[in-house]
């Protein structure tokens, strides 16, 4: 039987612009690229303010307060652009400032709203958006990160092949002060591969609550790069109950008996509210001690 693998065959035959309306107009209009831009306008200036406040939405806010900024979204392409404007999560870690995938929210982004979620921009035009940050009264203190994005997506439906979503954003660094409590925080210990007396392999991990509030942890485990490239999961990870501050507890994911022994690349991702931690390790499950027929096979 002859199987044909077709990935696609339109190599930019038509420049599909950001909006369906312009589709027929722009097939030749690809000379100067142009793009979608975003900038911060009407920045409140004070001599002592952070110089980065010119570039980013930077502020220090008390719980229960709100602040507004204006941003300008521009379309320098030759096509009409439908631009989605929204805030999404971000984090600051060992690899620097990193963006959440898609519209995944964090605390700061969930407090951020825009005057219009969708802008239709004619070629060469721009529009002002008002961004409002409303910090809830019970907000936890500390530094929060997010990104305000202007995003152009392909006109969904009919297109097949490799599609592109392009977005450009303004970073948000906001510290919340006065009142409130620290955000939840926890650490994940080393992943351990075990085999229960029932013969089922399991992955166990110690979770330590390093924050000041109780944790309500849930999450999942995925296995990849297994024998023959097999993947497994996600398997739910369960933890006894809410974990008190300063306490450690063992969490485990129970897996199927048929699972090959490994080695596997195991990744565990746990969250408590908006706090997410993950850990990765290469694991091999102990061999079954009883009868050999259950030996791992691909």
């Amino acid at each position, binding site marked *: 039987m002859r199987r044909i693998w077709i990935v*696609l065959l339109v190599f930019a035959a038509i420049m599909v612009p950001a909006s369906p309306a312009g589709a027929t107009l722009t097939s030749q209009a690809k000379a100067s690229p142009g793009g979608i*831009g*975003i*900038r911060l306008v009407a920045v409140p200036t004070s001599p002592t303010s952070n110089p980065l406040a010119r570039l980013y939405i930077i502020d220090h806010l008390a719980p229960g307060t709100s602040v507004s900024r204006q941003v300008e979204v521009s379309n320098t392409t030759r096509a009409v652009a439908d631009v989605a404007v929204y805030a999404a999560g971000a984090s600051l870690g060992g690899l620097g400032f990193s963006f959440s995938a898609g519209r995944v929210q964090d605390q700061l982004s969930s407090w951020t709203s825009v005057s219009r979620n969708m802008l239709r921009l004619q070629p060469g035009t721009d529009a002002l958006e008002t961004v409002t940050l409303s910090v809830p009264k019970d907000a936890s203190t500390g530094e929060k990160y997010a990104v305000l994005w202007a995003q152009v997506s392909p006109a969904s439906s009919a297109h097949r092949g490799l599609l592109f979503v392009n977005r450009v954003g303004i970073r948000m660094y906001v510290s919340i002060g006065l009142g409130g409590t620290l955000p939840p925080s926890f650490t994940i210990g080393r992943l351990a591969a075990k085999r229960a007396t029932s013969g089922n392999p399991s992955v166990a991990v110690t979770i330590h609550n390093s924050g000041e509030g109780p944790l309500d942890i849930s999450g999942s485990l995925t296995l*990849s790069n297994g024998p023959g490239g097999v993947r497994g999961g996600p398997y739910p990870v369960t933890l006894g109950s809410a974990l008190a501050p300063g306490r450690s507890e063992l969490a485990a994911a129970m897996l199927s008996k048929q699972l090959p022994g490994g080695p596997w690349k195991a990744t565990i991702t746990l969250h408590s509210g908006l706090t997410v931690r993950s850990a990765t390790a290469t694991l091999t499950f102990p061999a079954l001690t009883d009868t050999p027929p259950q030996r791992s096979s691909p």
Partner: protein
Amino acid sequence: MERFTTLTEGRKSGKALVVLGAFAALAAFSALAAGTSLPAAAETPASFTLTAGALSISAPTASVSLGSEVASALATTMSGQLGSVTVTDQRGGTTTWTASVISTAFTPTAGPADPASNVSYAAGALTDSATVVATAVTATDLTGVSTVVTGASTGISTVSWDPTISVIVPADYAPGVYTATITHSVA
């Protein structure tokens, strides 16, 4: 009456009086009536304000094909170039940005999808202006948001690249058109 008040104003500054004397009384009236702050304005250093420009991205919006091939009993790799991606930083001054990429799985109309962990992204050669130091990082697994290019700019700058996407096609995958969405994020 009006005239009297303007002269009083003028006396506060020698400069203004000279101006008054040099011009005809007619002209002086209108100038001074509007210009009680004229001397002060003349001493103010000239200034103008440059507002920060935009950070922008120009990247393919057209769907792109990586080509087609016959389904195989062996794993294969398909790759293709996406077309030019340009980041323009008009914010001015010292700025930095990160461009990152994430992919969905390549999903056929039926059958198993080819996961994003099999998708890699190489920015290739960067074309940049003199005011920016840009660094490319190859991403071999686009399951998560992966940084592919970073820029540290000292002025208005642009960086362009023409990325290559490679997809590992596992053995014995079913024929069909496999579709994925790749998101470029710049901030």
